């Protein structure tokens, strides 16, 4: 029997495996643009979101349906057995009988890993607290590959580098592509030392700064994140750093012509809407690329 392929964290993927997923996403992208296929016809995906989500939930939904499959969703937790006190392990055990794969978002770190130990079908981690969000990382890589260059890219990660799970996973993945990484954050939100050490040990050159202007003219990719209020244990700490960085047309006056600006969205003031129409803005495309990348992942785990 083939082992179940769970998607829990980006660290469990080799560069070859990532390249295979990105290649597959490129093949499937025409379907994502508005047709359907029968690749996953007769298959059912269960989506379990214990935390709010718009893009991740709907792009998994769209990806599954474009591939001819169906989706069951347990809706808000208030209307499910969770409200009656059912634990995650039991919910996962039950879902294996209803669906061919499970997409899980949960507020606790390590939830997806635990779920994979109880599941008879593949579990795809769609975010576990401040932990991992591997499909976001894969769609980020796809966007960089498609809109800029992935190998030896010069990229600035900007904003909340302390609590932001997307930047932690992305930095790790980029280390497989010999990236040059600029870390732009206020002192309170600097990248944790453990992650920086891992990057340096894997031969990556990193540069830290607080000033966005230091890097705008140098990099190929500007990856900015929302400073997430919900991740701060101390509201006072959040108030001190909220709105640390804002990209405006003026910020970009020294940018390279082919600079791209990425954001995992939702944004809350980090990018001025005036930037949306510029040639640099790719964040809405990035959001769309979630569909072909998730199609590739779904076809990989259920195909």
């Amino acid at each position, binding site marked *: 029997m083939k082992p179940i392929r769970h998607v829990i*964290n980006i660290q469990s993927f080799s560069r070859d495996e990532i390249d295979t997923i990105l290649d597959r996403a490129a093949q499937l992208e025409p379907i994502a643009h508005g047709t359907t296929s029968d690749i996953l016809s007769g298959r059912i995906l269960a989506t379990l979101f214990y935390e709010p989500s718009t893009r991740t939930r709907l792009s998994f939904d769209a990806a599954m349906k474009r591939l001819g499959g169906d989706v069951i969703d347990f809706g808000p937790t208030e209307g499910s057995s969770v409200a009656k006190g059912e*634990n*995650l*392990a039991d919910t996962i055990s039950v879902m294996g009988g209803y669906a061919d794969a499970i997409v899980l978002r*949960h*507020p*606790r*770190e*390590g*939830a997806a*890993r*635990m779920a994979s*130990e109880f599941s008879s079908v593949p579990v795809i981690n769609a975010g*576990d*607290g*401040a*932990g*991992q969000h591997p499909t976001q990382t894969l769609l980020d890589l796809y966007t960089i590959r498609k809109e800029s260059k992935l190998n030896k890219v010069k990229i600035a990660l900007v904003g909340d580098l302390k609590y932001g799970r997307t930047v932690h996973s992305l930095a790790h993945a980029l280390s497989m592509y010999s990236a040059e990484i600029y870390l732009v954050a206020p002192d309170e939100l600097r990248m944790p030392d*453990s992650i920086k050490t891992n990057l340096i040990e894997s031969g990556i050159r990193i540069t830290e700064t607080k000033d966005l202007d230091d890097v705008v003219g140098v990099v190929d990719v500007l990856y900015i994140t929302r400073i997430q209020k919900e991740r701060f244990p101390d509201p006072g700490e959040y108030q001190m750093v909220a709105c640390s960085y804002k990209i405006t047309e003026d910020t970009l006056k020294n940018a390279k012509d082919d600079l791209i600006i990425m954001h995992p969205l939702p944004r809350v003031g980090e990018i001025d809407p005036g930037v949306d129409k510029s040639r640099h803005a790719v964040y809405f495309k990035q959001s769309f690329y979630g569909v072909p990348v998730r199609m590739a992942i779904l076809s990989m785990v259920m195909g």
Partner: protein
Amino acid sequence: MKKENQPENRELRVRRIRNGTVIDHITAGQALNVLRILGITDRSTEVVSVVMNVSDRKKDIVKIEDRELNPEEVDEIALISPDAMINIIRDYKVVEKHKVILPSEIEGVVRCMNPNCITNTDEPVKPRFAIHRGDGVELHCVYCGRIIADRIVDFLI
């Protein structure tokens, strides 16, 4: 007046056991934590002797009578006392003697320091850590990835 380290006095303090396990060379002050790791509590029935700060506060000793601990049970002691020696005693003689060896993974011994880790909930899952050795011992939570690098003893279950 007899000196403290004379054989007669030592005999009185640490009685020989006929059968069982003697854990020697425990880091001074860690004997009670060794009992925690071994799951020995006030409800346990074994005869247990604990001697702390012997040989000028250099070590602790634990003796458990009529129970031979196997390596899986004792190797976790290496987390807090890397030089501990295990002696298996039969009829007053040492029949086996070996140093504890740090395992590559531990389960159910230490809790994760991340309060938001799934293992710190009512879910039916035991905390599990991969053990990495660098300058010191590091415990990496298998579930949330959080690293415990020092004061491991504070997180013993």
